[in-house]
């Protein structure tokens, strides 16, 4: 089982209660961003591009607890920035555990090994380590040679210390499914409980705007990746959401399903888009014109989105929306290896592309690519 039975039970009863109460919009996971500063500076990330006074600001533990209580979610994910840079992160995590919330503390793991002793293993706590692929893919994605080795060292140390460990892999244009499948094997061998996976975020603010997958290519990639799965692979994802990524299902976005709270307040409308901030969760629910969001809305910023923060809650809704949904989910959970000869052929014939920049650093493929770059551009980041 990829998640503890108690967690599955808590989530199931929470969703059923919301449905029985006739609530149309309810959150499932709070994305709690206690700070934006980070010890990496990935070129694809738009979360850390702020002036220094904003990067120095952080939420207090009390502000974090208030946000969690305000929206009432059973699960809290703590992205950032890098949460381990927050001096009060152990206190925040413990406070959430005391409130019986299932916590996913997202980290690039650069500091995980040295800070592990500040946390206690618990069924309520998972370290969600960001590892974007095999060594060179990850290193290139995070713009740091050696980043993968440090992250995997953190994973192994956390597993050895008895913590629950999940991983989080984001795929951009140019991702090679054969390599990602090897990456899954490596993660399971390292002892992780389960893996999360998502197409790259279409952050409006991301400095890199050229390597986000469109829907057609996302489906092809995820079909090759997730069909003919190995039994040992455990995913921390709603199975219906994974079927959506593989192109086997249609889902519409549930942007309120994973609301984001940060130093600015409640982000309108979702984790990816910033159309302003609400001061309370209720204000977020009431003031956002939800019809303007989701792929079907025609909003250009939603057009290629298939990410978990918008669609995983839709999968959960499908699961609990009808008997058909429950049966489909059970089938996917207990027998879903998705044997598919055509997908196997797709995988066998897959040619790693070199149009994306997320390719092997050591392969030399990038040399030609790099010559074509616009020489007027320079890295503004401190290096």
């Amino acid at each position, binding site marked *: 089982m990829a998640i503890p039975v108690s967690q599955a039970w808590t989530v199931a009863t929470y969703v059923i209660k919301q449905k029985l109460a006739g609530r149309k919009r309810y959150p499932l996971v709070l994305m709690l961003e206690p700070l934006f500063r980070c010890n990496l500076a990935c070129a694809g990330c738009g979360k850390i591009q702020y002036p220094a006074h904003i990067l120095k600001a952080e939420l207090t533990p009390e502000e974090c607890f208030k946000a969690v209580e305000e929206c009432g979610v059973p699960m809290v994910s703590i992205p950032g920035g890098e949460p381990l840079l927050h001096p009060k992160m152990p206190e925040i995590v413990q406070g959430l555990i005391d409130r019986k919330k299932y916590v996913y503390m997202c980290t690039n793991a650069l500091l995980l090994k040295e800070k592990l002793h500040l946390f206690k293993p618990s069924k309520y706590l998972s370290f969600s380590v960001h590892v974007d692929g095999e060594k060179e893919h990850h290193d290139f994605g995070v713009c740091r040679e050696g980043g993968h080795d440090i992250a995997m060292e953190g994973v192994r140390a956390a597993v050895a210390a008895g913590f629950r460990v999940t991983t989080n892999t984001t795929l951009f244009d140019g991702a090679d499914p054969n390599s990602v499948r090897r990456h899954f094997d490596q993660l399971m061998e390292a002892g992780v409980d389960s893996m999360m996976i998502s197409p790259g975020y279409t952050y409006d603010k991301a400095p890199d705007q*050229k390597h986000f997958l469109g829907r057609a290519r996302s489906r092809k990639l995820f079909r090759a990746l997730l069909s003919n799965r190995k039994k040992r692979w455990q995913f921390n994802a709603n199975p219906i959401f994974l079927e959506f990524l593989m192109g086997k299902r249609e889902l519409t976005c549930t942007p309120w399903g994973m609301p984001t709270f940060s130093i*600015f307040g409640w982000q309108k409308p979702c984790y990816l888009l910033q*159309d302003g901030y609400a001061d309370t969760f209720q204000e977020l629910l009431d003031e956002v014109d939800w019809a303007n969001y989701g792929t079907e809305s025609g909003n250009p910023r939603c*057009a290629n989105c298939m990410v978990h923060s918008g669609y995983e809650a839709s999968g959960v809704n499908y699961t609990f929306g009808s008997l058909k949904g429950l049966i489909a989910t059970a089938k996917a959970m207990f027998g879903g290896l998705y044997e598919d000869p055509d997908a196997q052929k797709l995988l066998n014939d897959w040619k790693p592309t070199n149009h994306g920049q997320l390719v092997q650093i050591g392969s030399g493929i990038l040399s030609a690519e790099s010559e074509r770059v616009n020489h007027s*551009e320079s890295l503004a980041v401190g290096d």
Partner: protein
Amino acid sequence: MATEQQEHLKIEELQQLSPDQIEVMAGRDRENLEGWIPALATEAEVKDAFEKAFDYRGDVTLTLKSGEVVEGYIYDRRQGSTLENSLVRVMPSKGEDRSRRSIPYSEIAALNFSGRDTAAGKTFEAWVKKYWEKKAAGEKNIQIEPEKLD
């Protein structure tokens, strides 16, 4: 809400195709706004300028009609039907009182994109170029360091 000008590549793409056929999404235009002092002569200019200021990843300087100068980061804006009921929300970067402020558009005399655009130039292409330069120079453990905050 980004302006149409900022979104035009995506809008053009979507006019040709449905999202389900798109292989790789068009990005959005990145405008070079650093140092820009927009004319705030008409209501449309004011609204457009604050929309861009909200999108901008650097600090701005607001000169209020009272003469007060507020420097900080615009993290939100609310557009109402008039300039009186439209406002920007600012996190000040200077002064003793750094608490957030809401300032109606109608009280603002001038806007200056005075702070550095913290998102400018940080592309994969730039990283690739820098990477290969460093590699060629024999460097090891090549990385982009986050900016120093002090």
